[in-house]
Structure formats: C-alpha cells, structure tokens
C-alpha cells in the first residue's frame, strides 16, 4: 500500500496510526453530518406536526416526509460545496491568521478554467467522445492547477510584501484582488468569446439516478433523485478531504505546515522554510477551491464572473461556524450550513402556507440559526483547538 510505504525518516508510522490520523477527523465530520441531518429532520417533522391542520389542502407531515430524503441529498451537495471552499479559508487562516477574501474568486477562476476547457474540447470535437470519469479527472486537474497557481501568485504579489504590516492592510489588499479578479475575468470572458454567462459544456452524464419512488397517492409517486453530477461532486469532495487529511496529518510536509501554524519563528529556527510552506498552503487551498469551482460548474451548467462571491462569503461563514483555523471544523461548518439552507429553502414556504418564500428567506433563517449557534459556541462548533490548528 502506498500509504504504508511512505515512512518518514524520523518517526516511523504504522499503517494503523496513519489511518487513525487520516480518518479520525473524517469520523468526526461524519458524526456531525449524520447528527445534523437527524436533528434537522426531527425538528422539521416536529414543526410540521405542530402546524398540522393549519392547511386544509395538504397534510403537512406527509408533505414533509415525501421530500425529506431529497432535501437531505440537496443539503449534502450544497454542504460539500461550502466545505471544499471553506478549507481554503481555514488553511490560510491557520497559517497566517489572515482572511484571504479573494478565495471566492479563486473558486470562480477554477470554474472558468473548466468552462474554457469545455469550450476547447467542443471546438476540437472530442468532448462527447470522452468517457465521463476521464473528463471529470482532467477538468478537475485543470481547475486545480489554474487556481492553485493563481493563489500562489496572489500570495507572492499581493500578500507576502505586506506580511509585516498591520492586519488590516493585507485584508484590504485581498479585497482589491477579489474585485480585480471579478472584473478581469469579466473582461477576458467577453473578449475570448466565452461570454459573461459562460456555458459549462460537459459530456453527457446520463439521466439522474432514481434511488427510490416515494408514493404520494395511489396514482403518483415522487422519485428520489440523485443527479450523477451531484454524486460526482460528493465523491470528489470526499476524496479531496481524505487526501488533505492524509497530507496534513500523516506526512512530513503536513508536520511542517502544522509547525508553521503553531509558531512561525520557532518553525523557521527548526529549519523549515516558512515562505515555502506558506506558498504551499496557498497552493493547496487554491487547488481545492479550483476543484470545487469545476465541480460546481459541471453541476450548474453556467458560470459567470460573479459566481464566486456568495459561495465564498458563505464558505467563510462556514469556516467561522466550524471554528476558523480548524480543518475538520471547516468541513463540519460547511455541511451544517448546507443542510440549514436546504431545509429552510425547501420547507419554509410549505410551513407558512406560502406566506414566506423559502428561496427568498433561506439566507435570513439559516444565518439567524448560525448567529444563535455562535452565541453559544463563540469559537465555533469544533472550536479553535490550538494544537489542531491547520
């Protein structure tokens, strides 16, 4: 096994230790995923039960139950989107204690790289001949390379010269980079013929998977659908999370990253090239963002230069929710936020008999719940465990 064959010269890890350090945090994430899904489902059902009878035309409990599995899947997909972006925020914060506000735009650039790849493949006529898994791997790699390199260059140009400056200065620089990227991509997209609303062309992923049919009445059943693209997203996100955990927790490089995060001057005294490690952190965070951008593009089909702003903001929120600086925390925060949004968007309108549009008020309700969580757990769901930083 490749995992076991990578011993470090100083500490020889057993396979078991490696697995524990990789899957330990993932276990924590898994518990939170299942836990929040159950809590939210029960809460929603309870509300439906209490409000039963307020609407003459529908049985609220039944109406809630029939779409519940679908809402959980939606929430999971949305949550993994936030989680993969949130990782970029949290890693950079862990190492530099600095919020890289341009990260949402790095995500967007990844999506555009995928759209450009799609349009090149179409014009060379090979897109539809490509097998879907191969296409996904190629597109994700392209997005990772473009966004990773972009993140490293941004760090080199816009952040490193400001490293000794007061904390607000690199922050303003990050906002500047973010606006620059939005309008720069807008310009390039318009000039290159991709257009402002760039089509994200992919090979045919086939029809969505019908997992089950949920009967509503005698003559009608609601299908439980998992889009192949959404499945791709989930699988790819999980693989990336496993790889990241392996890298950070079980390799020499990861030890160096953690050392820099804990104490930069001491790490440099121990012979760690701090600048290199920081650049590497940006590379990893950017690559994750780029991969998320491509996967997002594959799923939604159209991208525009402002598509990174909201997911970026929400992923930042997710990182804070999970405990900023904490890698499993970012994943947990992203998934909890994704669930919250999906539940509110899907059920609010049903519960209020159409008085409040779920899609319009999803953010308000989700963020109110979030504020409540932060009041009781100010350092986030998993907390800012200093020794676990990064």
């Amino acid at each position: 096994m490749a995992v076991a064959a990578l011993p470090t010269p100083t500490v020889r890890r057993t396979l078991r230790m490696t697995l524990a350090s990789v899957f330990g945090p993932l276990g924590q994430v898994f518990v939170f995923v299942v836990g929040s899904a159950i809590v939210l489902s029960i809460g929603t059902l309870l509300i439906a039960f209490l409000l039963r009878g307020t609407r003459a035309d529908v049985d609220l409990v039944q109406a809630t139950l029939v779409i519940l599995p679908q809402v959980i899947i939606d929430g999971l997909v949305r949550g993994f989107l936030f989680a993969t972006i949130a990782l970029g925020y949290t890693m950079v914060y862990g190492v530099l204690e600095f919020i890289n506000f341009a990260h949402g735009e790095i995500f967007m650039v990844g999506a555009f790289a995928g759209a450009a790849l799609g349009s090149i493949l179409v014009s060379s006529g090979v897109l539809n001949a490509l097998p879907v898994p191969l296409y996904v791997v190629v597109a994700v790699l392209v997005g990772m390379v473009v966004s990773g390199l972009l993140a490293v260059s941004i760090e080199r140009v816009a952040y490193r010269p400001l490293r000794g400056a007061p904390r607000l200065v690199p922050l303003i620089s990050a906002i500047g980079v973010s606006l620059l990227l939005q309008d720069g991509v807008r310009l390039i997209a318009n000039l290159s013929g991709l257009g402002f609303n760039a089509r994200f062309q992919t090979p045919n992923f086939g029809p969505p998977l019908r997992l089950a049919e949920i009967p509503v009445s005698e003559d009608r059943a609601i299908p439980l659908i998992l889009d192949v693209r959404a499945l791709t997203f989930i699988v790819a996100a999980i693989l990336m999370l496993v790889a990241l955990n392996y890298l950070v927790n079980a390799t020499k490089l990861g030890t160096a990253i953690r050392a820099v995060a804990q104490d930069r001057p001491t790490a440099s005294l121990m012979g760690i090239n701090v600048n290199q490690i920081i650049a590497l952190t940006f590379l990893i965070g950017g690559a994750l963002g780029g991969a998320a951008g491509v996967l997002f593009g594959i799923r939604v089909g159209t991208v525009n230069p402002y598509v990174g702003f909201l997911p970026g903001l929400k992923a930042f929120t997710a990182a804070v929710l999970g405990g900023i600086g904490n890698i499993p925390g970012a994943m947990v925060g992203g998934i909890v936020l994704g669930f919250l949004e999906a539940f509110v968007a899907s059920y609010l309108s049903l519960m209020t008999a159409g008085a409040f549009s779920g899609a319009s008020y999803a953010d308000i309700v989700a963020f109110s719940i979030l504020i409540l969580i932060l009041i009781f757990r100010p350092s986030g769901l998993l907390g800012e465990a200093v020794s676990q930083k990064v």
Partner: protein
Amino acid sequence: MKKQPIFFRFAVGAALAAVLAACAQPTPTSAPQQPAEPTPTTAPAEPTPTAAPAEPTQTPAASKGKIKIATQSPLSGGQAALGVGIRNGAELGLIDMGKALEEMGFEVELAPFDDQAKPEVGAANAKNIASDPDILCVVGHLNSGVALASLPTYRDVSLAMVSPANTNPKITESGYPNAFRVVGRDDVQGAVGEEFARTEMGIKSVYIIHDKTDYGQGVAEFFRQQAEKNGIKVLGFEGTEEKANFESILTPILAANPDLIYFGGIYDQAAPFFKQARERGITAKFLGPDGLDSPELLKLAGDAVKGMYYTSVAAPVSQFPDAAKFAEDYKAKFNEDAPPFSAQAYDAMGVCIRAIKTAADKNGGNKPTREQVVQAIREGGEYKGIAGTYKFNAKGDPEKAVYFVLQVSEEDGDPAEVWNKNKVVKKLEIPAP
C-alpha cells in the same frame, strides 16, 4: 475583529463598484455654446465606446449646436445580449433618421450609457445624462427596475424617456409626464400568458418563480392574479436572486408536480433554472414573459427550452415585415442577427428624432428645450415605425400594443439564427388598460 472584514468588503466593494461604474460611462462633455440649466460636468477624457454614429454634414459655422440622444441599457454583464441590441438598434435609427436634424443645422450624436441592469448604476447614469444639456431624449431601458430608479431624475429636468422594452405598469402609471414606451404592459402580458396556458396548453396547476425585480416579480404577480381568478391552482410562488444553483427550489417543485412552471424573469437566470429542472426530471411545461426573448436562452439552456412557449411584447425581428431592411443593416454593421428589442429601440429613436424635429421647427429652427421635446412626443400623434405604429395615450402607453405568444424553434444550429425561426403561435392587439 473577525466580523469587521465582511462589512469592509461590502463597503469597499460598493464604493469601488460605484467608482468603476462611473468611470465606465462615457462621461458627457459640456457644450460651450449652450450653457443651460444644470451645471455640466466637464470630463477630462471621453472614452466613447463607439464612434460617433453620424458625422455632422454641415460646416461648423452653420452648426446650430449639438443634439445628443442617450441610450441606457445593460452593455455589460449577464443581460448584455439584449442591452447591446437596444444600443445598436438606436444607433442604426440615428444613422437612418438623424439626417432630418442634420439638415436643420444640428450635429447629432448618440450617447450610450451602460446601466449593467442595476438600478443604482442606472440612477447614477441618469444624473450624468440630466447634467448634459445637449441630451434631449433617452432611449431605454431594458429593465423596468432600472427605469423606475432613473425616471425621477429625468422628470426633474423634464427629459423624455422613450422605452423600447420596459413593460412594468408602474413606468407609465406613476404619473411621470416624461415617460413613454413603444411596447405593451405586464398586466396585459401576464393575462395573455395565463389565458394561453389555460385555454391552449390545458394547464390546471402552476408553480411560479420570479427574480424579485420590479419587472420579474411584477409580471409573475399579474400571472398569479389571473390564474387564481380563473381557477388554475397556484402551487407555489417563490422569488430568488440565485443565478446558478437552483436545487433547493426544484425539490418542492418536484414534489408539487405542477403542470406548468411560470418564470417571471430574464433569460440569464431562467436558462440555468430550466436546464436544471429538466436534469432533475421535472416534466412540467415552461412558460415565461418577454424577458426570455433572447437567443441566449437557447444557447445556455439547450434542449431544455426547445419547444417551450413564451409571451413577448417584442418578438424576433423576423416577425416584422417592415423591419427587413433593418435586420439586414444590423447584420451588416454589427455582424450578428438583430436581437429582440433592437427594432423597438430603432422605433424609440425614431419617436425621439421626430419629436425633436417638431419641437425645433416650432422653436424657429433653433435647438428646442427638453420640455418642448416631451410636449412634442405627447402631441405628436401617430408614429409609424418598423415594428409597429404607436400613438401615445395620456399616460405614455401606446394606445394599442401587440402581444405575442411564441414557441421556441426545435431546429438545431446557431442559437442566434434558430431564435429568428421561433414560431408566432398567437398575435394579439390589445388596447392599453
């Protein structure tokens, strides 16, 4: 410390956006020979995006001054496909019909502004337009919400706005004496759509989605009112500003299983929505208003929208026999097929030019005031354009407007060409309410 950055980002972002927006506009230059009411802003440089469309034919000595006609529409961003069409249509109008003014000794010029489909940008542009005394008429906007944000500024300086595309009733119902349009209204359009859905499509239940703008929500509300009145079951009414990821809206639709999804909004948002709905396995039929009337809808949504119906006040240019020459000229000059609303922009320009000429004649051949231009449009009587004949009522609506129900062509090929093959299923001429 951790909360602050967000606020900073918004504040700085908004400020920068405003600055950028202001810079992106062709800043109106002051005219030394015509010092008029508002103080003109003297711009150091004039980044005119297009060459001045019509060259003055007179010698400078004979010139009686410069007359500019402004356009406002989204020239950049997600709705640029329609917005640029409006600018270009107006430009062709000025080239073809501006001669009448040049012969009287005026220099004529187009002043295009980019409102980015954002009300705040449109309102800022409106201030620039108002402060340029040479601008006597505005052709625009595309989005009703943007027009409503700009109209108070136009009214304060009595500047006429002739809209080629705004369908929200509030444009003419709010008592602006200077607001005119050459197209129909959403209260009628919503009813036309509803009647078509009920009688011809056999729809029993509908799920309504809108984009939360004055235009989209407005037309969706009118559709809903009619539907409720006439017994179509409204299963949901949801607004969203989301432009990419619609899954949490689609899940309740999947459960509600409507016969029809009505989308009150613009193509850039509707296209991914329709596409994702079909990928989700939603089989409901789609219907929408004139905001969907753009080839971009077909380009972005592909098979999902083939064969769908939409109502429009504009329709593809191929529907207007008188606009054949316009379509040719447009293709020759701008190297693409004339998009919907461009012919209406040409007509709006025609209305402006005729009014300016009438007002100038009354003014003894001198440059008229803005009030005189508004007056001339109001009293101008019938105007025969390439996309219809317009006579404005007291509110500024055309007395009779044409409403179409169209079906997206199922042919393959370049979306811009295929869109011109969209079939007119129904054409109604309805007087303004």
